[in-house]
């Protein structure tokens, strides 16, 4: 067949692949927002869950989700950034770094249900933390580690080595070059990774059901159990408790994810513009 003709057909077929992919995205977002957004009101966001989710609002879940996200970042960020700093500044490529990278890649591939089971056996039972925000946050933190390490490493490597040499030349120590030059300049990139991880925490369900639990109440401390928005959504959707409520919750979830992606997109752009 004529190569030019094959080319035309190929670009049509491939182009339709793109169209299908993007249509799926657009459809999902619009479908959820169309059915759910009208049902989202201030009352919905601030009221407690009533009748197992059939009425009322999702305030407890919002609190749980926020607590989970904040605490897990608190745990994962220092660990992840610290690991990235170690890999870039304190060693060169050797057996140790290879091992660390391998385990990081492995962790990235472990499904959330296994993290959930692990969290259940280790945090809830073995460490005696029970079904709690703390158990959930610790589990989430472990899940976030690979992403934070990866993005932090990239961000740190993007900072020119010459800045470090200037610091050494002036009599500064390695730690000073890290805290005064490298981390500040790498911060937008690092933050992007953190924000993406927050997105993951918000969407996570399987890991949280078995660690943070499904309590309907607003958590009063990190030792309380609490269901996140995603867990709540799953419960009321699957058990058919209330479709309108499900749609409304989904709408809030989608809006949250949208905002997180937009913020990280602009942050990454600002970072790239400075060095690209």
């Amino acid at each position, binding site marked *: 067949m004529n*190569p*030019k003709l*094959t*080319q035309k057909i*190929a*670009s049509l*077929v*491939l182009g339709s*692949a793109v169209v*299908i*992919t993007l249509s*799926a*995205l657009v459809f*999902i977002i619009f*479908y*959820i927002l169309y059915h759910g957004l009208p049902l989202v009101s201030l009352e919905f966001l601030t009221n407690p869950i009533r009748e197992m989710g059939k009425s009322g609002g999702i305030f407890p879940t919002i609190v749980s989700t926020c607590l989970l996200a904040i605490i897990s970042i608190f745990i994962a960020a220092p660990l992840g950034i*610290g*690991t990235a*700093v170690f*890999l870039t500044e304190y060693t060169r490529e050797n057996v140790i770094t290879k091992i*660390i990278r391998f*385990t990081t*890649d*492995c*962790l990235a*591939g*472990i*499904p*959330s*249900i*296994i*993290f959930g*089971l*692990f969290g259940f056996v*280790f945090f809830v039972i*073995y460490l005696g933390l029970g079904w709690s925000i703390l158990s959930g946050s610790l589990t989430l933190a472990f899940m976030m*580690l*690979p992403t934070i*390490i990866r993005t932090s490493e990239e961000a740190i490597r993007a900072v020119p080595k010459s800045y470090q040499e200037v610091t050494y030349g002036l009599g500064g120590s*390695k*730690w000073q070059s890290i805290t005064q030059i490298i981390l500040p300049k790498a911060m937008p990139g690092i933050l992007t990774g953190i924000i*993406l991880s927050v*997105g993951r925490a918000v*969407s*996570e*369900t*399987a890991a949280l*059901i*078995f660690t943070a639990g499904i309590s309907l109440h607003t958590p009063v401390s990190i030792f309380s159990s609490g269901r996140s928005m*995603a867990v709540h959504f*799953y419960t009321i*959707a*699957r058990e058919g408790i209330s479709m309108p409520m499900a749609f409304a919750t*989904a709408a809030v*979830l*989608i809006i949250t*994810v*949208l905002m997180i*992606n937009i913020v990280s*997109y602009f942050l990454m752009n600002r970072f790239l513009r400075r060095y690209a």
Partner: protein
Amino acid sequence: MNEIAEKIIEKFLIMIAFSTVAVLFLITFFIFKEGIPFLAEYGLFDFLSGTIWLPGENNYGILPMIAGSICVTIGALVVGVPLGVGTAIFLVEFTNKRVRNIVKPMIELLAGIPSVVYGFIGIMVLAPWVRVHLGGSGLSIFTASIVLGIMILPTVISITMDSLSALSPAYKEGSIALGATNWQTVVMVLLPAAKSGILAGIILGMGRAIGETMAVIMIAGNALRIPSSIFDSVRTMTSNIALEMGYALGTHRAALFANAVILFVFIMVLNSIAIIITKKRHK
């Protein structure tokens, strides 16, 4: 800043850096700790080949679930790989930077949508459509494959795009200079050159599909039988664990952990293959 403080910081960072190693170790240890004793008693072979899962009567065969996981994964690949690789090729080779800069964030958005929302759309939109037009209950391998296929798109697309972009421009220039069209260049030069990277992306997508839990629970039907058609309802290993863990006790619970062990090993093997392929590529 004195030297002692610097040394302390360095030691401290070494400890932090081993946190991933420690975490992986802990996960492996505790999952195996709960699951291996059961496997030792029940028998690995019986566990893997048993076709009946009836905890009440001490029957713990997970073959239906293994079959379910495999079918759903293959289905996801059938949907996701052509769409994903096709999209990636189009974006890298047939469009310019401006289009890429608009589409890439949208694909990342696709990755950010919670899996439970995907499952929900499956229940509310796809399953009814299938029920009406193709028969059956609508909750089956077919439905799950479509939804899972879309869920793994971001992984497949971004890795394929990276593999293609990482190729030396000399490949493309050489081919075009000989008069080949864009498409011919893609098929005869670029894809073969990038194949290990693309393969790694597919394997990672496979890992994601096997590990997916929530969406599959919602749309695959969860029936406990080995499927005979793509419109059959199935239960995957992940769904099995998630569905019954909430109320399982004693041996039942141990069996679920054993299920997790099998799943874990499978995924580790898959990931290692992907990592090895990627490392080979970078050499």
